[in-house]
């Protein structure tokens, strides 16, 4: 496996050549600092751009082209990494070695840039039909969050924590914001898109990477050089007294979320120690403390999980259970965290957690997207690569985990109550 970075003035191409997989994968990532008011417009823009293009003016035309290129796929998506908005175009295709057509690779690489640079627009306005279809789809995405009680609970919990924090921003904006966007205003945003975003392209596959880069350069006429010093971290403030809020839903079960701040972590704690802590505390499957106390010893729930939101500097615990068991669950979760702070876990548990985390990292070698992500975050945030991370994990001690646990402070408890019996 060979990693190489090609600097192409206005963008970089990062290539990872490997013959491990039958497919190749490209991520074209544009990044900028998050601005709350822009989130809905960006979601709409990226969706409109990946829906069709000048040469393929309907979704049907584009999908026929994908099928002609042996079921290649391209999709556009926006995501948040802490305080940064990523607008990504993801391309997957079968390795050229399986295809007889000599022009196959060129045709595949041409397509995402056709979508990006030749949108279905006339007189500086996006095609109205396309615009309306995508607009409705985004509005549906926003409304459909209500179909999932877990998502509703997390959203409300973040709002209860601090509705002005980027962590609480909705990736799709609001219905009102989407309704205000027009084909003309969206095109204005498109015109600024290349100027305001930093672009990096990541490629993994069994490809001639020099050829890939030359094809990208030939097809991507991007000339804006942008500042790449983006701040990832969201500064979610610690509270003197935790916020406790609840709401009522129409569900059978209650959903409960506890949000904790994690402040002042050094890079090793952030990238390494926290994963060991979380494995023992609540994310290590069926042997972790939360699972054992809440599910196995007290039969209060089917699943409980803790999530580390690294760039938001938060830890989130979620459980769904009966209304009458919520108080008991909160007491038990608090007790589990106290046990972590007081070191109520063994060296053996640390060793086992490290061993299992190393195995998860080994599994990343077997998946092209995971393998590539390793290099994406290494470049964006200096996250150590897999082998280095494994070495660092093996140096983690029980004391390191205890010291980290002391930096965790409860911020918010939010309960979305189920309907009463």
């Amino acid at each position: 496996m060979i990693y190489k970075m090609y600097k192409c003035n206005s963008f970089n191409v990062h290539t990872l050549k490997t013959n491990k997989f039958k497919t190749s994968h490209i991520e074209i990532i544009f990044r900028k600092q998050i601005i709350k008011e822009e989130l809905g417009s960006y979601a709409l823009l990226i969706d409109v751009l990946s829906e069709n293009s000048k040469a393929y003016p309907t979704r049907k035309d584009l999908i026929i082209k994908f099928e002609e290129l042996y079921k290649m796929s391209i999709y556009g998506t926006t995501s948040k990494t802490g305080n940064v908005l990523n607008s990504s175009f993801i391309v997957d295709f079968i390795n050229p070695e399986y295809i007889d057509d000599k022009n196959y690779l060129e045709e595949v690489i041409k397509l995402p840039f056709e979508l990006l640079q030749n949108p279905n627009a006339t007189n500086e306005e996006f095609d109205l039909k396309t615009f309306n279809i995508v607009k409705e789809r985004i509005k549906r995405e926003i409304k459909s969050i209500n179909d999932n009680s877990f998502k509703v609970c997390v959203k409300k919990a973040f709002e209860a924590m601090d509705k002005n924090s980027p962590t609480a921003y909705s990736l799709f904006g609001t219905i009102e914001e989407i309704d205000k966007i027009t084909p003309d205003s969206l095109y204005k945003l498109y015109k600024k898109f290349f100027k305001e975003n930093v672009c990096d392209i990541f490629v993994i596959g069994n490809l001639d990477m020099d050829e890939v880069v030359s094809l990208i350069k030939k097809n991507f006429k991007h000339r804006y050089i942008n500042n790449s010093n983006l701040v990832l971290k969201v500064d979610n403030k610690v509270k003197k007294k935790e916020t406790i809020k609840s709401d009522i839903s129409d569900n059978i079960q209650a959903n409960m979320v506890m949000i904790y701040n994690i402040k002042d972590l050094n890079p090793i704690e952030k990238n390494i120690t926290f994963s060991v802590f979380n494995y023992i505390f609540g994310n290590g499957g069926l042997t972790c403390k939360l699972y054992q106390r809440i599910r196995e010893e007290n039969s209060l729930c089917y699943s409980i999980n803790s999530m580390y939101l690294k760039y938001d500097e938060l830890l989130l615990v979620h459980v769904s259970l009966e209304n009458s068991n919520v108080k008991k669950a909160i007491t038990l979760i608090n007790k589990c965290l106290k046990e972590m702070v007081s070191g109520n876990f063994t060296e053996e548990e640390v060793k086992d957690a490290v061993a299992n985390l190393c195995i998860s990292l080994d599994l990343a070698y077997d998946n092209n997207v995971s393998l590539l992500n390793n290099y994406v975050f290494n470049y964006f945030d200096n996250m150590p690569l897999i082998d280095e991370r494994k070495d660092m994990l093996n140096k983690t001690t029980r004391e390191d985990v205890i010291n980290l646990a002391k930096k965790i402070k409860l911020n918010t408890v939010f309960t979305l109550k189920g309907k009463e019996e």
Partner: protein
Amino acid sequence: MKEISLEGLNEKIYEYKTKCGLKVYMWVNEKVNSCLMSLSVKYGSIHTKFKVGKKVYEVPNGVAHFLEHIKFNMSDKVTAHDEFYKIGGDANAFTTFKYTSYIVFATSHKIDNLKLLLDFVYNPYFTKKMITKEKGIIIEEANMSNDDPYTKIFYDSLKNTLQKSNYRNLITGEPEDIKQIELEHIKAVYNTFYHPENMFLTITGNFNPYEMTQVVEESLAKKEFAKYCEPIIIKEQEPKKITEEYVESTINIAYPRIRYAVKIPLNKFKNIELIDLKMMVSLIMNINFGSTSDFKEELIEKELINTMRYAIDIYDEYLVITLSINSNYKDEIIKRIGDKLANLTITEKDLKRKKNADIAALILQYDDIEMVNMKIQDDIINEGYIITDLKERIKNIEKVDLDKIIDCINLDNIAISVFLPKENQEC
């Protein structure tokens, strides 16, 4: 050891049968680090009534899933998870309508993980205490399913399509079913079905197949198995008619959803293997209702629908084609879908393109140890053997074959289920 070659894919599957009757299927990929082992039992949520000799057993819904949960207890104090944790195995299990599977991912200590998988599944340790404890957990799991609108839509639509079949029931069982499960039910199911002759092991990834089969043989030699009692599953005869032609209900969703299900007896399709039937119906639906169809494009452009998906399933002796649509215009959509189903068409050009795309997808399956593992399990459960000529079967499909299938798709039994948002949710 038998080597089964997969035509046109340059892949092979190893097949081995142990002395006690357990079949082992293996696919080796030396480019990856990990391996996935799944020990599957041909017993799922629909098998609630069965006969051994003259004795008939009837167990509550949800027993297969309940047994899968408590199977992980190896003794009063030790669970299989504790043991897998020590050797770095990532173990889990799942229950489907037709089978139950215990799985473990390993990147190291692969032999130890395999031994442990066999040890814990073939360890008949069940107590009343563990059943009492697990009931609370599984009832919460069933409640989670009942709170999920998409699960509710799936099962409510099945209930409107199938009158008596056990496919109508939640795999976990409803909370009331779960409360009825007792130790005797668990033991009866385990003793009857968890026999090597009714099970199979699938291993995919990086390993030595000869070493693995030796380990399996040695491990099983240490265990005692009674003679396989060859149970017979008793099924309710599913009537030809659907349950309800049209049902409207309100649930917790943001957008109205229509499920349009067509139920067709399999005996309508004469001399066609099930595997071919499923592929051909899938091509017909893809060409007529997929993203490259004029029909879907028009509905989207006229903003009559947001999404439209289709599914093809075999439930006992019936083929069920289901279209699932998000739309605010239910009456118009129901009419248009009915008209389109009555006028299905195929062009040579579309067929050729779709076939090429399907072949590419088939090649790509052999990049993923999880996908290949699932594919082998599906083949064994649904067909009883490994399908070796899938690529050829796709290549050989002609327009005339699809036209014949279209002629057999009769629309006598259609169940339409409409799910509307509750009043407090806007649409």
